[in-house]
C-alpha cells in the first residue's frame, strides 16, 4: 500500500516537474530587467515554501510526540526536518547564484538571507543532536524539545528582520499583499511549489520508513542480547 502511494506520488511529481519545466523554459518570456536568470525564482521560492512548511509541521509533530509519546511523531519530525534542510540548502544556493548576477555579490548580510542561514544552522544542530543521543526515547524527547526551541527562534529572527534593513526583493506573490509579478509568471511558482512538495513528501515517506527500520533493528538487537 505504502509503496503504491510512494510510486503514485513520485509519478505525479515527475509529470508535474516535466510539464512545469517545459513551461518555464519554453513558454515563459525572459524578464525585462533580469533576463533569463529570473527563472531561478521558480526553484527558489517553492523550495523556501516547502522548507518552512516542513519546519512548521515538524514543530507540531514534536509537540504531539511530547504529548503522546508515540514514536511515529518523532519519525515524522526527524524526516521533515532532514528533507526541509535539503530544500533550505537549495534556497541558499540558488539565491546565492542569483545574487551573484543581480546584486554582484554571492552573499549579502541581509535580513532574509540571514534568517534562512540561521534557520539552516539551527536545524543542522537538530540532526547533530539526533546523532549524539543513543537511547531512542531520550533522543526523541531531546530532539522534540530542540525542534520547538528552534522554531520559536526562527520566528523571532524572521520578525526581527522586519526591523532590519532589507535588500531582498519584496514579496512577489499576490497572496501576500500585492505582488510584482505578471500573472502568467506567478502561476508557475504555485505549480512548481506543488511539484516540490510532492517530491519532498516522497522523500519524507522514504526517510520515515528508514526510521522505522532503524527502530526495528534496535528492538531486534535488544531481543538478541536479552537471551
Amino acid at each position: 500500500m505504502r509503496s503504491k502511494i510512494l510510486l503514485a506520488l513520485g509519478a505525479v511529481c515527475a509529470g508535474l516537474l516535466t510539464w512545469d519545466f517545459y513551461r518555464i523554459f519554453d513558454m515563459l518570456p525572459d524578464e525585462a530587467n533580469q533576463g533569463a536568470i529570473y527563472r531561478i525564482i521558480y526553484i527558489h521560492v517553492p523550495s523556501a515554501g516547502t522548507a518552512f512548511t516542513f519546519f512548521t509541521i515538524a514543530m507540531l509533530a514534536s509537540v504531539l510526540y511530547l504529548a503522546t509519546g508515540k514514536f511515529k511523531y518523532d519519525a515524522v519530525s526527524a524526516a521533515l526536518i532532514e528533507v526541509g534542510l535539503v530544500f533550505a540548502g537549495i534556497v541558499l544556493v540558488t539565491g546565492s547564484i542569483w545574487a551573484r548576477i543581480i546584486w554582484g555579490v554571492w552573499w549579502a548580510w541581509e535580513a532574509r538571507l540571514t534568517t534562512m542561514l540561521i534557520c539552516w544552522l539551527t536545524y543542522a544542530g537538530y540532526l547533530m543532536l539526533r546523532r549524539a543521543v543513543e537511547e531512542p526515547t531520550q533522543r526523541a524527547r531531546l530532539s522534540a524539545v530542540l525542534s520547538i526551541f528552534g522554531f520559536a527562534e526562527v520566528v523571532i529572527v524572521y520578525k526581527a528582520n522586519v526591523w532590519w534593513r532589507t535588500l531582498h526583493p519584496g514579496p512577489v506573490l499576490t497572496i501576500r499583499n500585492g505582488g510584482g509579478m505578471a500573472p502568467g509568471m506567478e502561476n508557475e511558482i504555485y505549480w512548481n511549489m506543488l511539484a516540490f512538495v510532492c517530491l519532498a513528501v516522497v522523500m519524507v515517506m522514504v526517510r520515515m520508513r528508514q526510521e522505522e527500520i532503524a527502530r526495528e533493528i534496535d528492538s531486534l538487537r535488544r531481543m538478541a542480547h536479552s537471551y
Partner: protein
Amino acid sequence: MESRNLEYMFYGFLAAWLIVLAYVLSLAMREGRLRREIDRVRRMVEKK
C-alpha cells in the same frame, strides 16, 4: 529565450538538482545499509 544571464541560470538549476540528487543518493545508501543490517540482525535473532 535570449542569452542574457543564461549561464548563471543554468548554474542555479544545476546546483538545485545536484543537491536533490545528493540527498536521494544518501537516502538510497542509507536504505541499503539498513536493509543489510536488519537482515543480519534477523538472522542473529533466529539463530538463538
